[in-house]
């Protein structure tokens, strides 16, 4: 897919930035459609949108090799799309349809496609961090030269298993980059109320892991940082930890309609000045890399793709009822019945 191939193929700088912009718009429109699906009662459960954080995912993933591995928590629609998951397939999963990537069994939090290097999609805060280290362990064991990007939230750093994961990643020199997306909030709890030291990258200090705090809103900067650090990790075959400062403009989940409990409109407005879409569009126009009408066209194209995904999902069948018993095991069925 063209949309997702950004950075995975060589392309001119201009093309790359234009592609970033298209990718960003696709994610944003996809998320808005997901929200619409939730409001319409077609998308259920917990749905966490990536709106505002797109530059982080796009910038980092753009520097990966096609066989590298990515894993995140539950705010992962953007990561899946950026790695090349068909938006139709992703949206169908949100709708709980048999055409979804996980055949409707996973939902919004549980998108997976190992073929494109995407390993989910996890609901237990921090629980995926050792899995990520396990993937890096596998890469080293098999000597594949792959690296792993493990995305986690600011709130997730407080899960003890993350500390265990850092220790073993470093003890065994595993090729993994932990990317803490510090979007300032763990659900409705502000950073300062959950972390003793708000500089979260310092959590790596006790494990001999190099660590930095970086920007996550300006995709051009993100991409440069990513390039540098990914090259370092691939060469040294050692872990790295990055704290990326970004912001979610969406609520915590689709059902979060009390954001005033944890942030002011002013704060949101302040951050919106650095909305990744705004920053990039200004750059593209300012540097003459695109015209407003290009931007508008790409916007319309991205919207169309998101709408198509929605329509596809909506038209897709629910799983057959007896699918409830499949995939419990690879080789046997569980005992049936209530």
């Amino acid at each position, binding site marked *: 897919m063209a949309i997702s191939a950004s950075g995975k193929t060589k392309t001119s700088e201009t093309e790359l930035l234009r592609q970033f912009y298209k990718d960003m718009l696709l994610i944003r429109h996809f998320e808005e459609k997901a929200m619409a699906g939730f409001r319409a009662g077609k998308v259920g459960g917990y749905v966490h949108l990536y709106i505002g954080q797109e530059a982080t995912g796009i910038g980092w993933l753009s520097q990966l090799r096609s066989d590298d591995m990515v894993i995140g928590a539950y705010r992962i629609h953007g990561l899946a799309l950026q790695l090349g998951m068909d938006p139709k397939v992703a949206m169908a999963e949100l709708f*709980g349809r048999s055409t979804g990537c996980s055949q409707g069994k996973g*939902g919004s939090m549980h998108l997976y496609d190992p073929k494109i290097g995407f390993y989910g999609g996890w*609901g237990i805060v921090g629980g995926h961090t050792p899995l990520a280290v396990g993937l890096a362990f596998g890469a080293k064991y098999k000597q594949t030269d792959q690296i792993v990007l493990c995305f986690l939230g600011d709130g997730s750093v*407080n899960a003890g298993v993350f500390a265990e994961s850092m220790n073993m990643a470093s003890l065994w020199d595993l090729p993994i980059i932990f990317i803490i997306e510090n979007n300032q909030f763990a659900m409705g709890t502000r950073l300062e109320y959950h972390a003793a030291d708000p500089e979260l990258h310092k959590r790596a200090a006790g494990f001999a892991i190099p660590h930095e705090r970086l920007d996550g809103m300006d995709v051009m900067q993100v991409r440069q940082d990513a390039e540098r650090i990914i090259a370092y990790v691939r060469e040294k075959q050692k872990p790295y930890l990055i704290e990326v400062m970004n912001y979610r403009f969406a609520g915590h989940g689709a059902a979060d309609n009390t954001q005033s409990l944890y942030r002011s409109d002013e704060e949101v407005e302040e951050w919106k000045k650095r909305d990744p879409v705004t920053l990039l569009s200004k750059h593209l126009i300012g540097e003459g890399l695109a015209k407003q009408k290009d931007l508008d066209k790409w916007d319309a194209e991205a919207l169309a793709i998101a709408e198509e995904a929605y329509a596809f999902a909506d038209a897709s069948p629910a799983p057959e009822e007896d699918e409830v018993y499949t995939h419990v095991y690879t080789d046997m069925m569980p005992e049936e019945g209530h």
Partner: protein
Amino acid sequence: MAVMTYRDALRTALIEEIERDENVFIMGEDIGRYQGTFRVTAGLFEQFKQARVYDTPISEPGVTGIAIGAAMMGLRPVVEMMTMSFSILAMDQIINHAAKIHYMTGGQISVPIVIRGPGGAGKQLSAQHSQSLEGIYAHTPGLKVVCPSNPRDAKGMLKTAIRDDNPVIFTESPGLYAMKGEVPDDEEFFVPFGEAQVVREGTDISLIAWSRMVHECDKVAETLSQDGVSAEVVDVRSLLPLDTETIFQSVRKTHRALVVYEGWRSGGFGAEIASRIGENCFDDLDAPVARCAGLNVPMPYAANLEQVAIPKQTDILAAAREVLG
């Protein structure tokens, strides 16, 4: 008597106990400034401030351990698990610490802690967020485990739990928070542990359940009554201690028993209840003790599959008909 929701009944109990005893405090993720994800603790942070209401990091093992340590010093923490599914992270602290401390210390230290939150399935929350763990806790000596099914019990049992000197696992249900019912205003109203309640009398079959399943059973009993079958519904309420007498009495009267629970069928606590009925009412039984429970599968996300996985009225009705022969 006031009519209030299950949610408000819980909150009322918390408020009364926090006001009454300065050693009572609550802690949990997003319970304070954010008012609690299911709003059980709404307003408490404003009312009692940081001194009694602690927003915690996402650190279930640590938070639970801290609460246990505080309880060892004589405080009475009430810990909210945002969902009981997350308590699995703290099982070492709950099962291998809290439950054993009074014993290991030869009675020197007690652990008056309450761990509460919604158990079981919500609506399409997927496999990792939809688990019924109360049976695992009810398997653990040293814990008390209760699962109120209505606002009255919610308040009365939470107050009992907070005043109990032992660790109590208090399982709520996302499907019950909005349920309304009468709740005594009396600040010294308690529902004791270890007393099951017959919520509908009947003579032909005993439907034995707890938490949300009690209401499903009640509706099934209603349906059965239209067929002229008189079903008795027993709300177990407290899994540990377990009031086997009330259960046995019911079965000795109806001669037929169906145990209903939401969690995975195999190895669930309903098996314990069924076994005990089998052991103690052998000669009274006209049919095998039956069970109706969740399918033995991780909870699927898709709405239709989730509905298949959870025991519904139709499933319970079919199981009851089978028992009735």
